[in-house]
């Protein structure tokens, strides 16, 4: 693996990354990962981006766990702050990280944008010209009010609407923001909460943007959480014009994800470190047996993501390598379509909760019995 990486670095090292076409740029992005990409082209990026005005990023949190922020902060090569610096990004608003707080006295905002986050957000939205990063889904319920998810005195739906209208582009970060994620898990209260993704909710296109009539370029970066590389390299590609926001069709797949990170041409299963066990038919029936995890619920054969090549925690490991089956967290069907997590999808109940293996066993068993009865009856009649 290390030698493959070195070969790739060798192949790309003399490239003028700013002059190459979009295809080559994205190929380098996909193959190298943020660590190697920034170490190879950091100077070129810094020089190129210094010529542009600083790019403002406004980062909102809806219904979420802040895991995607944590994931970005855990990016170690480059570290979060270094990546912002390399890409000439000004993170103007991020609720978890900013020092300001939202202070109200008698229902009115007090202080100024230096002290009060609510005032800061209003000023930034009014100024416009930023990339909006949305982390977490957007509540529409109950009855379209959005009050299921209040931040301060406003529904997050309203905060998102104001911010999205003035944004140059929107990056939906994590599966909650892209497709609803765990906030749209089937439950009795799902329809009342009515959580939505930015541009898509589960498999249904449209999302909150359709409800609000917002038509902005949207890039989906699903994952629970999203990989820091996916975020930073997408931002880099956008800033350098390698991803044309007005022409996203060729860059994104049908679910709005950059094809370089979520390749339609192969599945996670294809590059899984346990793939050899699958090919030998060593399919674990229990955990920690060391073989392929398909029969204990691994969803990698249906999932498009480059986790197995990129790996997590600075290229250390990934779910299957650590012994946990893939739960399809980057797919629009997550989590309803990937539960139960530890049951092979073909064995999960689909027709009134009955799985196809049981249906088949009953039908085939009935046919065998019928064949026997039929044969006995016919022979007896002949006598």
């Amino acid at each position, binding site marked *: 693996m290390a030698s493959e990486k070195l070969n790739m670095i060798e192949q790309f090292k003399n490239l003028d990354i700013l002059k190459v076409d979009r295809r080559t740029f994205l190929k380098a992005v996909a193959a190298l990962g943020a660590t190697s990409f920034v170490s190879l082209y950091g100077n070129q990026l810094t020089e190129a981006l210094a010529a542009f005005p600083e790019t403002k990023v406004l980062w909102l949190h809806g219904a979420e766990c802040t895991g995607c922020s944590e994931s970005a902060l855990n990016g170690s090569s480059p570290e979060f702050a270094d990546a912002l610096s390399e890409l000439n990004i000004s993170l103007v608003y991020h609720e978890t990280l900013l020092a300001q707080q939202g202070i109200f006295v008698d229902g009115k905002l007090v202080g100024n944008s230096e002290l009060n986050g609510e005032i800061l957000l209003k000023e930034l939205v009014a100024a416009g010209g930023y990339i909006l990063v949305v982390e977490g889904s957007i509540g529409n319920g109950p009855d379209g009010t959005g009050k299921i998810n209040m931040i301060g005195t406003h529904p997050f739906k309203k905060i998102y609407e104001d911010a999205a209208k003035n944004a140059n582009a929107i990056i939906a970060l994590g599966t909650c923001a892209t497709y609803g994620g765990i906030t749209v898990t089937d439950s009795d209260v799902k329809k009342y909460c009515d959580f939505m993704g930015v541009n898509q909710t589960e498999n249904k296109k449209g999302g909150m943007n359709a409800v609000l009539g917002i038509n902005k370029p949207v890039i989906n970066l699903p994952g629970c959480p999203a990989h820091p590389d996916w975020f930073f390299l997408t931002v880099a590609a956008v800033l350098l014009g390698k991803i044309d926001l007005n022409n996203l069709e060729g860059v994104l797949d049908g679910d709005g994800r950059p094809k370089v990170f979520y390749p339609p041409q192969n599945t996670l299963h294809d590059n899984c470190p346990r793939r050899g066990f699958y090919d030998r038919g060593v399919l674990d029936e229990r955990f920690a047996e060391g073989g392929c995890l398909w029969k204990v619920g691994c969803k990698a054969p249906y999932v498009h993501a480059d986790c197995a090549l990129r790996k997590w925690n600075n290229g250390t490991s990934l779910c299957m390598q650590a012994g946990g089956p893939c739960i399809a967290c980057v797919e629009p*069907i997550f989590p309803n379509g990937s539960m139960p997590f530890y049951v092979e999808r073909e064995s999960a109940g689909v027709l009134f909760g009955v799985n*196809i293996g049981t249906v*088949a066993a009953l*039908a085939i068993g009935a046919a065998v019995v019928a064949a026997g009865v039929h044969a006995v009856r016919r022979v007896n009649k002949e006598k």
Partner: protein
Amino acid sequence: MSENAQKTKTVERYNWVERWTHTFHAIAMLVLIFTGLHIYFGWDIMTFHNARVLHMVMVPVLILTNWCLVPYGILSHGWQEGGVKGVVKHFYYGYIFNKDDFRRLKGMVLNFFGKQEKYPEFTVYNKATGHYKTKLHPMFKIFIVVEGLCIFLIFITGIVLYKVDWSIIGIPIAHWLTIIFGWISPILNMNGLEFARWLHLALTYFFIFELICHAFILEFDTKVFKYWRSIFIDGKEYLDSPVVQVIDEEEHH
């Protein structure tokens, strides 16, 4: 020639093309089911690689027989009796489940339960023309349609399983198929690729079910048992069989 002598006459029920088509079709189907389940369950009988190679070799065999030789067998009859019209007529009476087949099937069920003495004659041979008007068991006529549809579906789901970006002359067939599956799959809470895999497995089970019905219910009947020999070996039809009705009708065009 007396009527009895006429009835004991032996004619050709299946020609050599039909017999070989059926044999290859059966072999391909059995190997595909076995190797498919071998891959799915991770059996130890052979290596994954060999199972996959066998599976892939049998795909063109099945497709060639089912999509080329079977239609050839069906459409090569009837031409001499009336050109295109004759072919259509032969196809209708020979392969489409019609009201006569319904009557015959009903009679078979009643006969099975002892409510009707006579077992219906489902093969009708016209001695005037020397051809069959119809010869298949009525239940087969239903199975043919269902099986044809299932073979088509298992083939297209198999393309996606084989390679998710499989294309031919630049046409991204597998990608388009995945998109189409993605339109249906939300009903079952799946993505397109997941649905393709699930359907491929479900259809495999269906073929096992159909095989049992085809070979061990319909053909494990004392009255039709001889057709095992006919379809695999000699192709003969004995006109004195209780399931054969011999008619003497001139064709009018």
